[in-house]
């Protein structure tokens, strides 16, 4: 990832997690990321217009539950937290994408965002993303989180 974008992504990640879910995440090297327990969620938010690609936000199931509980102001054990966890992950991804849109695009070439899509990740898929150089890793309350901004190269003719 471009160093400027990478820096912006880390800042936006901290802002959004803090403001949205009162959670605080620290960037960590991939090798020091807390291990995934169970499955993971990956919310992907395509962008197009001035640039084309997608913003992806991955979390463990346990972190998804914390995000939902904190966002809704309910206890972790309440059924509402587990019921809303996938939706809460999509919503955080949507806010992350919205905040990053200004950095991904340019004033003269803004990007438009599509609604996020959510996927469940098995451990092997999670590991593949974790070690990919384009992924930024974060430890949030000892839970793992991943953030990626990928660009699709323009394939048109000149």
């Amino acid at each position, binding site marked *: 990832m471009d160093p400027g974008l990478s820096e912006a992504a880390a800042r936006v990640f901290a802002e959004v997690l803090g403001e949205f879910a009162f959670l605080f995440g620290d960037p960590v090297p991939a090798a020091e990321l807390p291990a995934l327990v169970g499955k993971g969620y990956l919310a992907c938010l395509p962008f197009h217009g001035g640039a084309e690609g997608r913003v992806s936000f991955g979390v463990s199931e346990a972190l998804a539950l914390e995000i939902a509980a904190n966002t*809704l102001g309910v206890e972790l054990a309440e059924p509402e937290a587990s019921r809303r966890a996938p939706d809460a992950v999509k*919503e955080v991804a949507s806010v992350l994408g919205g905040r990053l849109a*200004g950095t991904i695009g340019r004033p003269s070439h803004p990007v438009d*965002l599509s609604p996020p899509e959510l996927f469940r990740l098995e451990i092997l898929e999670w590991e593949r993303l974790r070690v990919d150089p384009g992924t930024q890793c974060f430890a949030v309350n000892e839970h793992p989180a991943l953030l990626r901004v990928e660009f699709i190269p323009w394939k048109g003719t000149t």
Partner: protein
Amino acid sequence: MPYKVLAVDDSSTVRTIIAKTLKLSGVEVSRFGEASRGDQALEMLRQEGFDLVFCDLNMPGMTGYDLVETLKREGLLKTIAVIIVSSIENVAVIDELRTKGVRGYLRKPLRPERLREVVDHVMGARHGSGT
């Protein structure tokens, strides 16, 4: 005066947050409706007299932009105040929406005090806060 409010967002979490934030902000609500899609919201707004709409922009199918365009075309923005709730920070987009008749903008995540401020401004502080 309590308001009839419609929350339009494909995320049920956000609709719940809007309801909770309204309660925390002290804005009086007589009816809280929810729509997960723009076309569903449009039908509800055609059939029922809502005062205030909190609307997401980035939704599958009919987006918030499309909904605002349609409401404007049908003359419904004269009686319904639309406040966009989004994470976008593109000033040009927000300005364009205002020219179409959108009355306010709230950045996600919502905060009760900011929501109250925007509702008061948009509705002309008609709900008797005494402030």
